[in-house]
């Protein structure tokens, strides 16, 4: 049991790290991109830049929330 707990703790620490909000921001922004691809916009030249913009905005929001919560 301790091994299983340690195993999951290792991978949580590895993937999520210090701030879970960053991982959530990335998943949400890429998830929005995935919805756009499934909706048929994969060939659009705007898709990649817009997903990139979504990740930048999501990161900014996660960081500001983090700073406000700790100050």
């Amino acid at each position, binding site marked *: 049991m301790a091994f299983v707990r340690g195993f999951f703790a290792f991978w949580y620490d590895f993937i999520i790290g210090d*701030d879970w909000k960053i991982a959530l921001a990335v998943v949400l922004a890429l998830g929005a991109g995935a919805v756009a691809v499934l909706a048929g916009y994969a060939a659009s030249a705007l898709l990649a830049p817009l997903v990139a913009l979504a990740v*930048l905005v999501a990161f900014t929001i996660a960081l500001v929330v983090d700073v406000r919560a700790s100050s």
Partner: protein
Amino acid sequence: MFTSAVAGLAVATFAASFVEFVEALTIVLAMGMTRSWKSAWVGTVTALLALVVFTAAAGYALANWLPESALQLVVGTLLLIFGLQWLRKAVLRSSGRKALHDEAEEFREQTEAARRAGRESRFGLDWFAFVVSFKGVFLEGVEVVFIVITFGLNAKNMPVAIIGAAAAGIVVLVIGAVAHGPLTRVPENTLKYGVGLLLASFGLYWAVEGLGILTDGGNSIEWPGGDWMLLVLIAAWLLLSRALISALRRPARPAVTAPVARATEEV
């Protein structure tokens, strides 16, 4: 042929791996100097063997079972999260909201934890020193594996990426052996900021390409401008991080004058 692209790939892989190896070395040194060199080295060698098995298994699975776009989505997303964690810390440190990372301080914390931990012996080893060294080297090593995979495959030059990472490992080992202590003079905060920008940019580029796994053909999404967009992404993360540092900067506290400080101490 040695081109600027090859040099860029080697430098990027070297720098990113260098930072990871410095962190692993600090942990192993702390365990060796306070607990047991034998257990720390056995932990390190076991972690390296586990890394070889992990890399071989992951490499086989990625090469044979996963389409390219799925590989890009999985590895790109992981690298993007790593890069943004580093960028977050860099922004918080530069804006005065988090203490600068100090390898000497990290070493002190590790050695104190090692002294406080109880003695437990297994297989003739100091178990605490073994486990902490194993975890430290394996964790940082897996990050190096992902960095090599992403940078190497993206530049279609895996040998140079591997050489860059291996060279970083050798340089850190040599410097560590000569210094016989934590590498406090490495400009780690600046390096981490730069590496965070690289990881976030390459990770984002790959993760978006990998969304193509959801299309009927499973082909990667095309970026307008191709690989040149990597430079645009690096510039975008740099500008955003500088803007965030300015916006979040804490005003400097007024300095406490000596008499006031003395009076406070007396109270």
